[in-house]
């Protein structure tokens, strides 16, 4: 054990690991927000509530239908995505052409409804969700103990993020998507069904949030308000990164998770606030965010 500035490397790496895991969730959520904002021009305030729904979906599957973690990893995002697409078709689509703030207000209302309903049935306490058998235990790396599930969470979310980046930036479908973001009218003129593309995009962004929820279920407890606290931090992450770039939101997400982890080691009092302080500093230097273009 080599102490560094009075802190053992053990504690340092443990907090960095927690930071990376939080960063993975920030990245998944801000990625979904960026994709949705690009297509719908809506900042999805319900993102945190849908993340929570993803976790509860997995919990329900396990406790009522005895369907385990691995199928839930696919089924929960799918279920929440379908719910999201219904919301998009019935409500969000009616806000087209209105000021951006109405989208924010509508999704804020949705978040209140969803969180209120879950709180009615589950109170504020958490429901435990077991780590899947395959990922129990951990590896001793010499300088720290690495639980398998946490390693899996980081690796899997990173893979999902990079895959999304690849799909949007490098494939034909992504090219159509970017075209529809840039100029929906012209893209429609080329025979692309843009309204359907918008619905699917919302479903995909929301599905990413639900996926983060399933990944989080075994680490944190499944609570009705687990997303409410997270979404504000994710908003700050989005402001820091700027919503213009997919890679930007991934990098910013992980980086801020790490910064938060480091703060927990060296100055724990500021762990909750460091992301917001970083946001204020970034805004002083670059009002459009690190990777953003000036609106």
């Amino acid at each position: 054990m080599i102490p560094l500035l009075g802190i053992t490397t053990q504690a340092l790496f443990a907090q960095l690991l927690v930071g990376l895991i939080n960063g993975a969730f920030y990245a998944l959520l801000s990625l979904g927000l960026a994709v949705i904002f690009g297509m719908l021009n809506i900042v999805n305030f319900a993102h945190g509530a849908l993340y929570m729904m993803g976790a509860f979906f997995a919990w329900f599957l396990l406790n009522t239908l005895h369907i385990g973690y691995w199928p839930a990893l696919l089924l929960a995002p799918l279920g929440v995505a379908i719910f999201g697409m219904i919301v998009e078709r019935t409500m969000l689509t009616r806000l087209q052409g209105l000021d951006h703030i109405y989208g924010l207000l509508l999704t804020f209302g949705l978040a209140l409804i969803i969180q209120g309903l879950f709180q009615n049935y589950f109170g504020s306490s958490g429901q435990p969700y077991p780590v899947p058998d395959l990922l129990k235990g951990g590896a001793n790396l010499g300088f720290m103990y690495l639980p398998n599930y946490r390693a899996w969470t980081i690796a899997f979310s990173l893979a999902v993020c990079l895959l999304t980046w690849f799909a949007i930036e490098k494939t034909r479908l992504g090219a159509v998507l970017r075209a529809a973001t840039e100029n929906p009218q012209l893209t429609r003129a080329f025979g692309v069904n843009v309204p359907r593309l918008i619905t699917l995009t919302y479903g995909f962004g929301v599905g990413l949030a639900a996926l983060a929820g399933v990944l989080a279920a075994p680490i944190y407890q499944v609570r009705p308000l687990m997303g409410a606290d997270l979404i504000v931090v994710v908003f700050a992450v989005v402001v820091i990164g700027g919503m213009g770039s997919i890679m930007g939101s991934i990098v910013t997400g992980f980086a801020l998770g790490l910064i938060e982890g480091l703060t927990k080691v060296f100055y724990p009092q500021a762990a909750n606030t460091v992301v917001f302080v970083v946001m204020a500093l970034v805004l002083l230097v670059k009002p459009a965010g690190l990777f953003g273009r000036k609106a």
Partner: protein
Amino acid sequence: MTDIAPRAPAPHASAPSAKTSTELLAIAGLALALAAAPLAAYPFFLAQALCLALFACAFNLLVGFGGLLSFGHAMFYGSASYVAAHAAKVWGLPPEAAILAGTLGAGLLGLASGALSIRSQGIYFSMITLALAQLVYFIALQSPYTHGEDGVQAVPRGKLFGLIDLSNDVTLYYVVLAIFLFGLFSIYRIVHSPFGTVLKAIRENETRAISLGYRVDQYKLAAFVLSATLAGLAGATKAIVAQSATLTDVHWTTSGEVILMTLVGGMGTMVGPVFGAFIILAMQNYLSTFGQWVMVIQGAIFVISVLSFRRGLIGEISNRFKISL
């Protein structure tokens, strides 16, 4: 950019005096009704409601006339409440000085947070104000002066100017009513001043306002600071009324509630937020035994208002009868 408070074009655009006089009449009618209100409801409840109503009016100054949706206005309301409570309890200041201290504190906070957020457009502005408010919330949670989850309790009401004893609820109510009317009338004067006209021009078409030579950022910052200061006045008064300052006042749910009040009453109307505040408070009171259903119903009101009731109650009336309220 579409406009934020959809309103039909005024039928007599050449007669602005008719427009302002109906607003003044509405304020006067409201003042009379509120002066008689203690006959019908508990003065303590009314005093609390007036604080929230002033908060909503201050918020409306920014969103309704400046087109800026702040999602963090609880930071001004809550921090002013803490400062006033601390000033009255720990420093032993009389209520008028405590309220003044809280109001000024919120104004300074508005200057700092406004300088950071005002340069960003639209939706970014909302997210930045929300994040800054969360920063203030965590500071309030950890600071030794705020007593964390307990909040500042048993704040003395004291004697106003050393003469008027505020421990009587009815006396207190009329003092709060005076503060409220001062706030509302200030907003009326701000909106109808040349400054307010430029502000509305920026809301309608910012690029054009810039090309006309207005320093848009300075106007927006001034509106932000004014709104923050008045929200602070509401929060500081609330600390004296409720004799406490708690974490709830600075939490994002309070920021959400003030948006809901303004939306329901009518963004961009003069008296709409007052009605919105009373409607939402009455609803919370009647439904208080139903636990989290209040949250669900508030969310549903948000959704319904945004989908089919964007003008709000007073906005609909003013649109129907072609008068400005």
